[in-house]
């Protein structure tokens, strides 16, 4: 009973650990510190946006605009990040603000217009990309100050600065979800909106927060991406929303709302990251990588599922 409980609770983490073990058997490079840091750095952008969309999905919504918002905030932040222009905090704050604002707009459309989140954020996805193109006239914005470059490239105690940001975002997000009132409300709304309303929860306020926070984290990802690739690119991050959502879902967040953790999303992002990494390390040809990637993602969840199935035969 107890070990079953562990299996069902940490199922996907166990699958991930198994994956790591297999990977390290397959390639001697995999477990090297440098490579592990690589993987972490590589997943940071998706994972952070993933934490945001985890909030949104738990609340019963979805966000398709992530990739576009990453691009939009990236180019806007980039345009304030030239050397000798502003202190680095300016592009950062502007990027975060723009991100949060777009989230607030999506949230408002959803809450006040009673538009399904899929449509509202689809609209945002298309429009924000257009705005990014208009803002840059389609060309990347480059030439950053040293301190802006540091965000995506710098090391602190030999570990990329980005990874600290990843961990801080993880902790903050976890903390909000698990230990604050609003966190409880997010689960409640996604679990049973009607019940949340009759319990006196301000659904409007909570959802506006959720989408703004999601936007904020997309903004953070946008800043990180711009700094990492040394360019604010209007067409960057196309399709990142799918990776972010997939990370959440692989990590156990339910698309019907009410269930999920950011910790799970991190594991989900790691599974995707490790997969990309090990397939590259093993020099699997790119086309086959795609085929395998699809199969392994499904396989990982299947493995997780088989374990949970045993735990609870009457689980329907």
């Amino acid at each position, binding site marked *: 009973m107890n070990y079953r409980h562990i299996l069902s609770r940490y199922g996907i983490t166990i699958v991930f650990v198994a994956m790591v073990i297999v990977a390290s058997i*397959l390639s001697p490079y995999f477990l090297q510190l440098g490579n592990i840091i690589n993987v972490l750095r590589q997943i940071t952008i998706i994972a952070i946006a993933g934490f945001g969309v985890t909030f949104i999905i738990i609340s019963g919504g979805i966000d398709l605009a992530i990739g576009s918002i990453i691009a939009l905030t990236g180019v806007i932040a980039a345009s304030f990040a030239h050397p000798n222009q502003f202190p680095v905090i300016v592009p950062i704050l502007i990027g975060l603000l723009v991100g949060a604002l777009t989230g607030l707009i999506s949230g408002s459309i959803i809450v006040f217009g009673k538009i399904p989140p899929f449509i509202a954020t689809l609209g945002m996805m298309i429009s924000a990309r257009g705005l990014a193109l208009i803002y840059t006239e389609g060309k990347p914005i480059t030439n950053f100050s040293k301190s802006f470059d540091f965000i995506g490239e710098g090391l602190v105690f030999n570990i990329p600065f980005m990874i600290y940001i990843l961990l801080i975002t993880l902790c903050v997000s976890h903390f909000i979800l698990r230990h604050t009132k609003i966190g409880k409300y997010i689960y409640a709304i996604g679990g049973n909106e009607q019940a949340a309303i009759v319990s006196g929860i301000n659904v409007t306020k909570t959802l506006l927060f959720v989408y703004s926070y999601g936007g904020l984290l997309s903004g953070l990802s946008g800043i990180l991406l711009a700094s990492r690739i040394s360019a604010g690119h209007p067409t960057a*991050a196309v399709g990142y929303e799918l990776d972010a959502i997939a990370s959440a879902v692989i990590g156990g967040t339910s698309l019907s709302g009410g269930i999920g953790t950011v910790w799970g999303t991190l594991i989900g992002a790691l599974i995707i990251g490790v997969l990309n990494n090990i397939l590259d390390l093993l020099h699997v040809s790119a086309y086959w990588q795609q085929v395998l990637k699809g199969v392994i993602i499904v396989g990982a969840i299947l493995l997780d599922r088989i374990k949970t199935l045993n735990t609870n035969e009457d689980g329907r």
Partner: protein
Amino acid sequence: GKGSNTADKEGSKNTNATTTSTKKKVIGVMIGDMSNQFQSYIMDGMKAEAKKYEDEFEFVFVDGKFDSNVQLSQAENFISQKVNAIVLIPGDKEGSKPIVDRIVKAGIPLIGCNTKVADMEKLTTYVGSDTIQSGELLMQGIADKLGGKGNIVELQGFYGHEPQIERHKGIQNILSKYSNIKVLAENTGKWNRAEGMAVMENWLKSDLKDKINAVVAHNDEMAIGAMKAVEAVGLLDKIIIGGIDATPEMLKYLKEGKVEVTVFQDAVGQGKKAIECAVKAVKGEKLEKEYMIPYELVKPEDADKYLAKYPTK
């Protein structure tokens, strides 16, 4: 499937190679976007050349999906595997900056291919061409066909992709010399035929229908899409169509007179040369700073000559 699968065999062989012999030197090849048709021809050239060095070298191809962030990750992976040299087709010129920096810092010889990077001087060598030139050749070819005046529409590549930006620049460069050529409309066909076709169809239903004299497409796929739209309304002999890449299919249409202009870039040649340079760099042989393989404007009568450059199935 009849589409055969060399990629497949290659893939599994490579896998064996890593696990069995670690003695072979490894060259990492970063393709900008493997699902891009043009780049798949470069890859063909690379693979053909790579065969020659099979016994000593292992070549690892990775797909950058037109995403600098993905490419940066791949560069990092290569660095942590300590590959002996890297060939890079950047998906994006500006976004390639940290990629180049990191590889150079790791002391790995870096061969640029096809698309320029932001800091050209950091490359060990560059094999390719200057993308702006392709736009210039295309526009010049069309301007000549138009006799220096007329109305054009521009089908652009995926916004923000390096070739889209540079080709647009090249086109602008030429247009600045022709005050009688007017751009009536521009939109993106996202490098792809279906999109190019739909956009063109819509233009052809609008007031532009009788005004368009030429379609300037950033690549042949979109040019073919536009051609199909123009053909459907029976205006093929009135509207001049041009693209870039000189794909086999485009060359066929050029011969048939359905399109007027395309620009050849020696994909296979670039690919071969890049691999050759990478091998030389590992062996410590001396390399020039640049091997320019310029674009060439293709005239209909030369179509067969260019067709012959593609490996036959």
